[in-house]
């Protein structure tokens, strides 16, 4: 079971045991991690699951797809290095320990 750490803007850490194959968004929503909304249910339509992925595992995620790229470009509140839509991050054992920061505001 990969562990995911969601860090709130105030520094609070939410450590969740994820199910491999599920997205980082679905995992956060189901466990009630505040600040990750997932309004469109993982359809890459709303950008309300925006997170900042910390450096160590960022490279393992690969590049965002075209749709995600457009959303990051146009829909998120503030795009920075590591900006990703958590609905597009499929959790695997290799991503155990993935740590993401939750932005203060979702669109």
């Amino acid at each position, binding site marked *: 079971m990969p562990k995911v750490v969601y860090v709130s803007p105030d520094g609070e850490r939410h450590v969740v045991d994820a199910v491999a194959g599920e997205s980082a968004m679905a995992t956060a929503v189901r466990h009630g991690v505040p600040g990750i909304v997932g309004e469109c249910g993982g359809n890459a339509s*709303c950008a309300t699951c925006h997170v900042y992925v910390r450096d160590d595992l960022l490279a393992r995620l690969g590049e965002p797809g075209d749709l995600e790229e457009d959303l990051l470009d146009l829909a998120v509140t503030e795009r920075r290095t590591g900006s990703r839509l958590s609905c597009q991050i499929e959790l695997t054992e290799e991503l155990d320990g993935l740590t993401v920061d939750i932005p203060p505001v979702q669109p």
Partner: protein
Amino acid sequence: MSGGTLIVGASQAGVQVAVSLREGGDTGPITMIGAETHPPYQRPPLSKAFLAGTADLASLAFRTPAFYADRDITVLSGERVEQLRLRPGSAITDRGRSLPFDRLALTVGARARRLAVPGADLDGVCYLRDLDDAVSLRERLASVGNVVVVGGGFIGLEAAAVARSLGKTVTVIEVADRLMARVVSPVVSECYRQAHLRRGTGIRLGVGVAGFAAEEGLVRAVELSDGTRLPADLVLAGVGIEPRTELAAQLGLDCDGGIVVDEFARTSEPGVVAAGDCTVSPDPATGRRRVRLESVQHAIGQAKVAAASLLGRPESYRAVPWFWSDQYDLKLQIAGLGAGHDDHVVRGDPSSERFSVLYYRDGALVAVDAVNNAADYLAVRKALAQGVSIAPERALDTAVPLKTLVSRSG
């Protein structure tokens, strides 16, 4: 002792009311009750990934059981509220239980509209609204050859695409002269007709269903209003929804094709709010004419506002409505409400299955339908949220990305 808040309908909106009440600092009892036996779950995948077999039951749940327990939200599943009373507030369930409440949220949703033609009650004539419907449909799909879908709206077309992708012979019957006539313009309707035909799904427009023929109680054919008879082992009717207004009517709440609420999600009765598919409310984009919006976004947005009203901190619901539909590899994304538009611009070639249509009213941008074109969808959504327009003559030039025509601020 305080009766707290009772949320009737364990739905997208119901869950959001409960969550928002707790996030807003409400420490009173919260009980959410739903007639379905399943804990609250997402509906959109039912006609898409779940029906196709690529999403399982477990993935549909909104929250873990622990989530509700940790927040002291009581979820009662498989129990239906049959009677409601106010002053003092109490609900009587089908199990004879009485639930007291001080505040009430109606998030009761809608039911699938039923066909009223001879044979409509035959085995094999199905609907798709809730999880049990989807489970049954998925099982039936595995063993049938000929599928007839009645209704060329989102649900019917999404299910038709799934059935066709599973190798079934599929025909869609639509009584209007084009597909998705209620939500998109003719150019988009035509693109979808072509897309379905290209993938082997039959489309019959401008024809209704006269009845169904059976063998041994099981549907075998659909009889059309023009006299045609189509073989069918399975019929799916996706002919719209009817808001559940019975409980609201018991309380004497204003209803008009749904439970009437204001921009604060308040019904005509103090202390009673409503949210989601069951409501009609002022257009959240303009605050003017009353609309009924069937979408996840609306359920969530209105539910947040409903919770704020219950907490005594009313905030007006304003949002750019958006919708989506997945059919085969076509992703349709809609932002804004195009009803009443007097001008439109088509960006790109519809036959390429990647294009968008921008709608204008009185010279102002009001909506977009985007097919496999998230960039245009997002640019228009942003423009609408900022209250700015994109000049039609500039939008025509597909060489210019729409986003460059929208300010990046805000």
